Each structure stands twice: as structure tokens, then as C-alpha cells.
């Protein structure tokens, strides 16, 4: 900044007599600003939350009680972490989201990642599968295996987990509308491996509410979709007790363009809706709440992300204990996975993304995440290449083993800034939750387009800030270069789609069509009578009914969802 001749030194300043912030402002800072002004007229987070030049004990106020606001790790309200020992005992799970092409190809990537030190699996399905359609559906043309792995039936699922012992590896499946079907397939694979389902560890995203709000992968309308979810929760309470039934997600809400506070508020509001749904379905809150989990985004603004995660833990603990009267500490603990923000990564100068991801991963770790996916540097170009995903995994490993940040719990706790911002985000998020409550809850708010409009506004505002260079993105609107950097991107083999279709056709021929028909009938009957859908779904998948057949069977009973688009 300054390469001019050295300034004459002023006499050492006496510390402000009363030690107040105001004295410092008046006596020290403002005079200094007259010589060197600030770089900008305003400083705000990536979400446009204004940030002060300095935070002191005065910002916390005399009423700020660390016992009440923070507590200790592993104790209510868990602000500093949900476990008493955190990373000193166990590092977060390194869980890279993976999936493309055929089940065999993805299986190979799974083995590769596990061999490189990844500690849990995370499955990315292709769009047809995500939407509950088969590879031969008319809307699936061109989409098979492109955005994730194509799974049409249990046969594909068996190939996907070939050589992977489900009693020793935990799996997260990013699937929502047809989540119950894929879950049934996973259980069936475990059965074939001889693994008792009560030993299974894993997570199902299964968060349909955020689909209507942000990710937009739906089949049925909200209310029947909630019924499928509560059926699954009830089934897991009895049969798969170690399974995380929902990964209540803020990630996608943020990717759609929300602010950090909106991500926090809308996600916790969704959580509230799921707890209400479970209770309405007759379940005791402590029977299922411990297996609700969360999934957050980690975006560029380092402190905003750390504070968001700390606020989330404290808020959820209070919601569960005070609002829902949950008695088990496990019901109060917000356990979560984090993914670094895909939307923050650039196509230009892609290696810069390695730096962004490192900062974002660090924020997640300092925010106390239980599990982490780091994006690959080619995120804005294609699905991750082997090379790019390895760098992303190494980023986590270096953070874990070389940076030292895991040596103590919640190292940022007690920072005036961090505690002020945590409190501020909690207050702002609570306002949103109250508004949603006032509308009659999340489903009513969704039907009114409330969250969708808030997100679209925030996205548009941010785009204007970027286009107008008020927010810098290095390589995109600042420090641009004539691109000479070319990276090798993953190409999906065009043979994937025809081979998948051929396999599906063969499956339909070889399986017992009559048995499939019977299981589909039973499924429809259960849907109509309110019987738990999971056991009948299990029968259907064991008979090699396809994802599309099962999802389609429920349409006459549940209906389909159409969005009223709001620009």
C-alpha cells in the first residue's frame, strides 16, 4: 500500500482514559482516518451484512453471559460443539460427493476415494434418478449418467456397492423425491451382503421441503411427500436406528442465492416442520429427533460461515428443548455435514478455486462440522476429474493434519467479533422463523412462494453487486486474464446412456414381471390406506421394480407438483 517515505512518528498514544470504544473512535481512529481513509465506503459480508471496523467487549454487552450463550462443548446449548472432545478424539468424516455414468464407473470412483483416505461415501445420482424416472423415460434423453450415477433398479445398486462392506462404510445418499425407493434398495443390498440392517450407518438427504424452495427436484406435492418421510422415519426408529433419516439442508438454499441468514432460518424452519410432522404422525420426539441431521453450505465469507454454524447449533438446541420439549440431549444436538459452496467457484482461472475451497473448508472446520465435502477446482466446468477430486480431498487432509486448528475446540470462541456476529445472525434468523410461523409454517409459506421470492431477490441483488463490481470475484470481475489455462475435464462416455437402456430392457425381460406387478399393487394399496410404505417398497425393489415404476405407481394416489414460477 504505502511505499512513500516514512511518516514522522507521532508521540505514543495514551490508551483512552475510560477505555471506551467511543474514545478510541474519536481520539485515535478518526484522526488516523484523516490521513489514510478506508478502502471502501462500506464493508459487508458476501450476504451484505454490514461489518464494523472493530468489535469489543462493549458489543457483547454486560448482559452477555458465556455460561448461557456458550456453555461447554458437548453441553447445552452446544454453541462450541456437540461433542466434549470434538476433533481431538475424532476428525470430521471426509466424505466426497461422487457419482457419474454407470454404477460400475461410480463404484470405481468410490474405491479410488476410499483408497485415498476418504472416510465415508456420498452418492450423487443422475437427474432421471433424482426425479424418480427411469433411464428410458422420455424426459431422460440426454440426461442419463450426466449429473450423477444412473440407478434404475436394485441391480444397479448392487453394482454400485460391489466390494464395499456396508457394515463398515457409512453412506450418504443425496436423493429426495424418490429417497425412500433408493433407501429400500440400499437395505436390500445390505441384506444380500448379509449385513443386518440395524447395523447400517448412513444418511439419506430426504429433505423434500427444500426442494420446493431451492433444488426443485420433486414428484408429489408437499403433504403426501411428508407422509413418505414420516413413514421412513418411523421405519428407521424400529429397524434402522443408526440411520440419519433426513439431512435437513441449507446448502441448496444458499446455492440458489439466499443470504447466510436466510439459509440458517429457512433450514431450521424446515427442521421444525419435520419435527412437527413426526409428532403429528404419532412418534415421540426423542425417538426420532436424534437421527435428524443437517447439511450446510460453506461460502466465501469466512466469519459469516463460522458464526452461522455456531448460531445454528445454539438455535436448534433451544428449539428442540424449549419449543418441542425434547428430553434427550441427543435430540438437542445439531449434527451436520458441510459442503463448500459450488456457486462461489469460477470457470475462469479454475486453480483459484483451490484457494476458495480451502478457506471455505477451514470455516466449516472452525464451525465444528461432523462431515465435510470439499468441491473440486473444476466445479464450474464439469463433474470432478480424478486429479481435481484428489486435490479437494488433500485439502481436507492438510487442514486436519498440518494446520493445527484441530488441536483445541472452537478456537474462535470468545472473539468479540465472532460472538457478536453469532448473536446477530441468530436474532435475524429468529425473525424469519417467526414470520414463517406467522404464515402457518413452512408448507404454507412455500405455497405462498415466500422463501422462493426471498431467495430470488437475494440472488438478483448479489448478481447486481458482482456485475457492478461492488463485490469482487478474482478472475471474473477483477484481475481477469486472457485464459490460457486449460484443464482436463471429466467427460461422460456417450456409451453410458445406450448401455444403461439396454441393461434396463434386459432387466425388464428377465425379472418376474408378475411379482413386480403384485408388489406395485401392494404399494398403491399401502399408499391409499396409510400403511407404512417402506416394507412394501422393500418388496418391490427386491422384485427388481424400477425407480420409475415405483414412483409412477404413487402418482394416482399422491398427485404431482407443479411450481408457479416467480422470476
Amino acid at each position, binding site marked *: 500500500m504505502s511505499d512513500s517515505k516514512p511518516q514522522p512518528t507521532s508521540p505514543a498514544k495514551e490508551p483512552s482514559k475510560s477505555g471506551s470504544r467511543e474514545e478510541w473512535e474519536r481520539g485515535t481512529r478518526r484522526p488516523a482516518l484523516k490521513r489514510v481513509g478506508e478502502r471502501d465506503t462500506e464493508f459487508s459480508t458476501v450476504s451484505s451484512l454490514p461489518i464494523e471496523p472493530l468489535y469489543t467487549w462493549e458489543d457483547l454487552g454486560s448482559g452477555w453471559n458465556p455460561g448461557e450463550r456458550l456453555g461447554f462443548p458437548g453441553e447445552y446449548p452446544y454453541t462450541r460443539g456437540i461433542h466434549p472432545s470434538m476433533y481431538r478424539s475424532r476428525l470430521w468424516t471426509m466424505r466426497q460427493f461422487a457419482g457419474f455414468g454407470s454404477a460400475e464407473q461410480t463404484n470405481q470412483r468410490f474405491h479410488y476415494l476410499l483408497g485415498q483416505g476418504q472416510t465415508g461415501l456420498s452418492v450423487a445420482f443422475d*437427474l*432421471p434418478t*433424482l*426425479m424418480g*424416472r427411469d433411464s428410458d423415460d*422420455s*424426459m*431422460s*434423453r*440426454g*440426461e442419463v449418467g*450426466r*449429473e450423477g450415477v444412473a440407478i434404475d433398479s436394485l441391480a444397479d445398486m448392487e453394482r454400485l456397492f460391489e466390494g464395499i462392506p456396508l457394515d463398515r462404510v457409512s453412506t450418504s445418499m443425496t436423493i429426495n423425491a424418490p429417497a425412500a425407493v433408493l433407501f429400500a434398495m440400499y437395505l436390500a443390498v445390505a441384506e444380500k451382503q448379509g449385513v443386518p440392517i440395524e447395523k447400517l450407518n448412513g444418511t439419506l438427504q430426504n429433505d423434500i421441503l427444500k*426442494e420446493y424452495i431451492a*433444488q*426443485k*427436484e420433486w414428484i408429489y406435492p408437499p403433504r403426501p411427500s411428508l407422509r413418505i418421510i414420516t413413514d421412513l422415519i418411523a421405519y428407521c426408529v424400529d429397524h434402522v436406528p443408526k440411520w440419519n433419516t433426513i439431512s435437513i439442508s441449507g446448502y441448496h438454499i444458499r*446455492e*440458489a*442465492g439466499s443470504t447466510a441468514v436466510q439459509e440458517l432460518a429457512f433450514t431450521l424452519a424446515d427442521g421444525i416442520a419435520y419435527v412437527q410432522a413426526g409428532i403429528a404422525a404419532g412418534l415421540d420426539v426423542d425417538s426420532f429427533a436424534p437421527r435428524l441431521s443437517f447439511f450446510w453450505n460453506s461460502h466465501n465469507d469466512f466469519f459469516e460461515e463460522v458464526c452461522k454454524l455456531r448460531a445454528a447449533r445454539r438455535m436448534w438446541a433451544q428449539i428442540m428443548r424449549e419449543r418441542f420439549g425434547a428430553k434427550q440431549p441427543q435430540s438437542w444436538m445439531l449434527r451436520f455435514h458441510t459442503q463448500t459452496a459450488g*456457486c462461489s467457484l*469460477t*470457470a*475462469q482461472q479454475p486453480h483459484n478455486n483451490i484457494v476458495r475451497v480451502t478457506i471455505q473448508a477451514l470455516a466449516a472446520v472452525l464451525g465444528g462440522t461432523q462431515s465435510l465435502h470439499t468441491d473440486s477446482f473444476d466445479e*464450474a*466446468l*464439469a*463433474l470432478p476429474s480424478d486429479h481435481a477430486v484428489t486435490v479437494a480431498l488433500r485439502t481436507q487432509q492438510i487442514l486436519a493434519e498440518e494446520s493445527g486448528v484441530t488441536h483445541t475446540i472452537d478456537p474462535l470462541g470468545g472473539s468479540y467479533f465472532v460472538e457478536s456476529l453469532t448473536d446477530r445472525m441468530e436474532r435475524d434468523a429468529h425473525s424469519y422463523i417467526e414470520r414463517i410461523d406467522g404464515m402457518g409454517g413452512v408448507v404454507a409459506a412455500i405455497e405462498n412462494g415466500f422463501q422462493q421470492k426471498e431467495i*430470488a431477490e437475494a*440472488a*438478483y441483488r448479489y*448478481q*447486481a453487486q*458482482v*456485475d457492478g463490481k461492488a463485490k469482487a*470475484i478474482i478472475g*471474473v*470481475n477483477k484481475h481477469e486474464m486472457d485464459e490460457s489455462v*486449460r484443464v482436463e*475435464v471429466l467427460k*461422460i462416455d456417450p456409451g453410458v446412456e445406450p448401455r444403461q437402456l439396454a441393461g434396463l430392457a434386459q432387466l425388464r425381460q428377465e425379472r418376474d414381471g408378475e411379482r413386480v406387478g403384485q408388489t406395485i399393487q401392494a404399494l398403491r394399496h399401502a399408499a391409499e390406506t396409510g400403511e407404512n410404505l417402506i416394507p412394501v417398497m422393500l418388496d418391490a425393489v427386491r422384485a427388481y421394480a424400477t425407480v420409475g415404476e415405483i414412483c409412477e405407481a404413487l402418482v394416482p394416489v399422491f398427485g404431482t407438483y*407443479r*411450481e*408457479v*414460477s*416467480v*422470476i
Partner: protein
Amino acid sequence: MNVRGGGTPVSQENKVRLLVGKVGLDGHDRGAKIVARALRDAGFEVIYTGLHQSPEMVVDTAIQEDVDAISLSILSGAHNYLFPKVIELLREKGSQEIPVFGGGIIPETDIPGLKKAGVLEIFTPGATTAEIVEWVRSNIPRRGAA
């Protein structure tokens, strides 16, 4: 589902009409909605198709709405099938003069192929709304009576 935009007191016939479409199963609509809104705010008549449109639905809507161009947003990786399919359907229906452009997650190496198939322009991540608006102003005329 159509959402119309615009509202400035200019004769409707003079405004360039644009279809902004999400074709295929891709539900990522952040970019499409921003582009639609920016175009609307810039004075264009915008028809936003909403999600999960088949290529047939996009083409039918475009023809019904008498648009001056079709823009497609694709982040799913299915662009090499969907763009040419829309162009092929326009040709089949005798509406091949409707230009097609778009954007999304499209590797540089795929762009020449798409242009060869008839796509006029592809806007990849990093393009500003101003650039897109400017390009449309310079490249998309109001078509005469069909």
C-alpha cells in the same frame, strides 16, 4: 407455466419477445431467473417457461408465443442433446428462423459443436447480465409477421 414481464408503455408489437426456458430435468433455475428478470428490466417481453420442459414443450410455447428468440439454461450436462434437439424440432415445425442461444455449465470444448448445430451464442459462468442484454439488443431483432 408462463410468467410475463415488461410493463413499460411501449406498443407491444415493438418489443422483442424472448423465451427463457429450463429444458430437461435440470432444476437449477437461479441463473435463468436472473437472466429473465434482467431482460425484462431492460425492456424486453420475457416468457419464462418454468422448470422441467421437454424440448417439444419449449418449441410449442415459442411458436405459440411468437417469440423472437429462444434462450435455454442447462446446468445438467445434457446440453449436447437438448440444444440440437430444440433446433431440430424448430426445423420440423417450419420455425427454423427462431434463433436459439443460452448458457449454463457448458465446457468451452463443447461450444463449437453447439454453434455448428445452430446455437447462436453460449453464455458461460462469469458472463454479466449487462453483456447478455447488450448481446440480445445487438443480435435479436423483432421478427416480422410470421
